[in-house]
């Protein structure tokens, strides 16, 4: 059985990540494994007497200890585990939960799972309640596929995305084609065939356009090949992180 890995920590937006992970696991008939990252530096820092906690909303100083930090983090981990259990059992998806001291990025890079969902928080410093949401959703909930023409993993990602959209019946597939995809008549035919099937292909000619499209579309789930992220041009990575929605990385690192 294939496996989907959900890498999370105490600041991951589980409200968005969990439904996306469940959707993928259900479609792929995969096991869903959540790995909870604990920050050892945080626990060590709380042990020092000179350390105080500054409230994120009130700016009030509180005394802190490693024990209290550990307990709080553990409580969060337990809560996430419980939510995973409830959601997975409802969909009859096999699941697992582990805790480790590696960071989300390390987990994402080092795992051999077919699909990884990195649970990066939308901001390294600010919680989601402090972030701004003036437009909460679009009228449709598309699946977005970022395509970099020429990379083989793109085709695999498109296939998975189509399967996902087709199985759920409610998700729309949008493909962002970098560097303009309309070079030949055959491409146009493929585009109109895709449109008839409920897909939308949007040509994107620059990174700026890519970022803008990602920000506007605000999808339920973004599928990207892991090799695309490993590409030297890491603007795609930053663009993806800025969209503040669940990201799934397909394929293994070579």
């Amino acid at each position, binding site marked *: 059985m294939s496996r989907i890995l959900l890498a999370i920590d105490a600041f991951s937006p589980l409200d968005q990540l969990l439904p996306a992970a469940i959707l993928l696991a259900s479609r792929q008939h995969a096991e869903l494994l959540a790995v909870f990252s604990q920050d050892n*530096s945080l626990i060590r*820092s*709380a042990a*020092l007497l*000179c*350390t105080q906690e500054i409230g*994120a909303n009130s700016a009030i100083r509180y005394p802190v200890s490693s024990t209290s930090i550990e307990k709080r983090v553990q409580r969060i981990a337990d809560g996430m585990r419980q939510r995973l259990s409830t959601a997975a059992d409802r969909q009859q998806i096999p699941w697992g939960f582990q805790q480790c001291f590696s960071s989300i990025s390390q987990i994402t890079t080092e795992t051999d799972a077919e699909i990884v969902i990195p649970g990066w928080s939308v901001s390294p*410093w600010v919680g989601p309640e402090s972030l701004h*949401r003036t*437009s909460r959703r679009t009228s449709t909930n598309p699946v977005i596929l970022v395509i970099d023409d020429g990379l083989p993993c793109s085709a695999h990602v498109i296939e998975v995305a189509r399967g996902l959209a087709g199985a759920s019946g409610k998700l729309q597939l949008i493909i962002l084609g970098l560097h303009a995809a309309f070079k030949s008549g055959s491409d146009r035919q493929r585009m109109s065939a895709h449109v008839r099937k409920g897909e939308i292909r949007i040509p994107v000619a620059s990174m700026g356009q890519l970022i803008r499209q990602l920000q506007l579309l605000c999808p339920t789930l973004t599928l990207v090949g892991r090799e695309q992220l490993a590409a030297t041009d890491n603007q795609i990575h930053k663009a993806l992180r800025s969209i503040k929605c669940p990201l799934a990385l397909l394929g293994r690192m070579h």
Partner: protein
Amino acid sequence: MKPLPVSALRWHCDPNQFEFETTSQFPELTCVFGQDRAVESLRFGIAIRREGYNIFALGPQGTGKQTVVERCLGERAAQQTTPSDWCYVNNFSDLRRPLAIALPPGSGVRFRDDIDELIEDLTNAIPAALESEEHRARLVELEHEEDAQQDLAFQALSDKAETLQVQMLRTPGGFVLAPAPEGKVLEPPEFDKLSRDERKRIEATIEGLQKELQAIVEQLPWRQKLFRDRVKTLRRDVLQYAIGHLLSQIKEKYKDVLPVLTYLQAMEKDILERVNEFQQVEESPEIPQEVKPTLALVLSEYEINLLIDNSETRGAPIVYEDHPSYHNLIGRVEQESEMGALTTDFSLVKAGALHRANGGYLILDARQLLTQPFAWEGLKRSLYARSVRMESLGDMTSLISTVSLEPEPIPLDVKVVLLGNRLVYYLLYEEDADFAELFKVCADFDDDLDRTPESCQLYARFIASVARQEKLLPLTRDALARVLEHAVRMSDDAQRFSMHVRSLTDVLREADFTAQSDHRSVIEANDVVLAVDRQRHRSDRLRERIHNEIRRGTILIETAGARIAQVNGLSVLQMADARFGQPSRITATVRLGRGDVINIEREAELSGPSHSKGVMILTAFLGHRFAQEQPLSLTASLVFEQSYGIVDGDSASIAETCALLSALSGVPIRQGIAVTGSMDQHGQSQPIGGVNEKIEGFFQVCADRGLTGDQGVLIPESNRDCLMLRQDVVQAVESGRFFVQTYSNIDQAMEILAGVSAGEADEQGAYPPNSINAFVASRLKRLTDLRMKFGAEREYNNL
């Protein structure tokens, strides 16, 4: 003194005086007929445009007051300008006080439709603007910009901390700063190993960074407010562009109507102020769908409540409110039940009759108005204030103290016409000081009309017009003549026509029914006679029952022979629409006494004040005539035999006096003659009412037993012109089987009843021998002597 001739007993209307065969050929009577005084008052009251000149049209029911009032009002109203339309709109600065807007007549509907169309356009334009790619892109840009700024501040501090070998870490509830030389946070034992100075330096560094961190966190709310303001400004700009041109079109259309323009400007301002609300209408997933306000619901607050629409009105409005309750007059604020609570808004303000009549005329029935709680007070208040202010009865009486609407009062310019009877008018005038202030014009409708050749012709045209309006068959000349005769009979005076239009109309309708039942094309004289007879018959049960009792001898009435101290008086009974006369046996007794005339009815508390007064007058007459120089030494008793109900009126005082004189003189009174009449202290007869019914009542009793030819009725001379007797009575008189005779004083009445001369006093006050007065005087003298004798003996015995 002779009995009256047949010609004096009934007025006969000659059909030949009418030029046409049927009433269909009569010209329509276009003017108001027979109410000159009332019409003149009405026209004056309608024309004068001063405060307090409202009108009270008084008169009996059925005299056509409402018809006449509406006709007079209609004549004037048609020449007046149509008043404004009125509507209520939301008051954005105070939702509890909806604003009233006046519009040119007929434009209210257009304005409402224009606003509805505008709202429909806004329902599409607002979401389109707020969901447009451009707007969303700009919003997302703002969001990311702000988020990036926040991250930047923290990141900058984190970087600075790093240069100072301090690491800034995020906790589940906030942040911590910890010493981290070479990027790794120190363990406590490692920290303890540092020198004291080093530890202090690190602590001071951390302290400084914490203060900077606090400053960043403290700025977050302010930054968020700035962000919200920027978003709001962005949304407003987008919305302004989307709605601006829609509103400018409608503003241009109503640029000459300042209140509308003001409202549209306020509306635009409100829409822009509520831009966040429009955004949140769609985006509130936590609110259940069934309670989520839709955009249409929010925009409905800009709709127009068209209170008064005068687009169909020509001239000034004339409104008749047939149920003048407080709220039907003043208007009301309705409420709706929503999720178990009562809610209201400006759209639930409903107009009352005063609103509908504003700028025109309002007709109300006075009795109905006065019987509705608080309606009269509400009307007065509105007239004084010259505005209509809506206030619920609950609020007014402080029974309910919930938050409710207070719609802006609407200026009132209305003339009120109250319809009522005379009693209501006089009571209001006496008891309510406001009434005289507010209703300075009284239009007094007459009960009847002088019968002259000219009025006869007009009356005929009037009947013809009524028949036409009622869509009845035309009347023949003979039928018309019978109707006119009936109108005279209804007035109780042969010299006058009754103006009780309703009763006459009923007769016409019933005559029409008879004619149509016989498949005829005109109403004939017999139809009218039948209609009148049938009306009488329908309510004749009681009269027949009484006469049956008389016939059987249960009620003892003698119509032959003579009796001392007993006379047939006459009375009229009226119950609902039944009115008939019947004889009453009046008896008198006398004995020694101190001059009292006992009214047994009064002693039994069955005598009304008028009857008691009549007996007192009778007593005074007796004393005046026979006790100038000696005390009255009798005790007399008078009674209406076999009468067990209230007796009122003084129309039997002549009869009672005759009975008493008969008792004193010992002269018997003919029982075949009935007498009716009122009397003054000098014995002069005075007119009475219901003379026709009284005569017919006694005639019927005699006729039932068989007329003897020496039976009849005595009536006061002053009632001669009131006679309008039934045909059978007239025929009986004509054939000498019955008579009707007038008299002027008590002596004449006694002479006819007793067949003995009454006698006239000479200069010494003595009466001729064998006259009635002589017999009475003699008897009274004897009684006085007896009294003196008894008085002297008692005094002697007391010694």
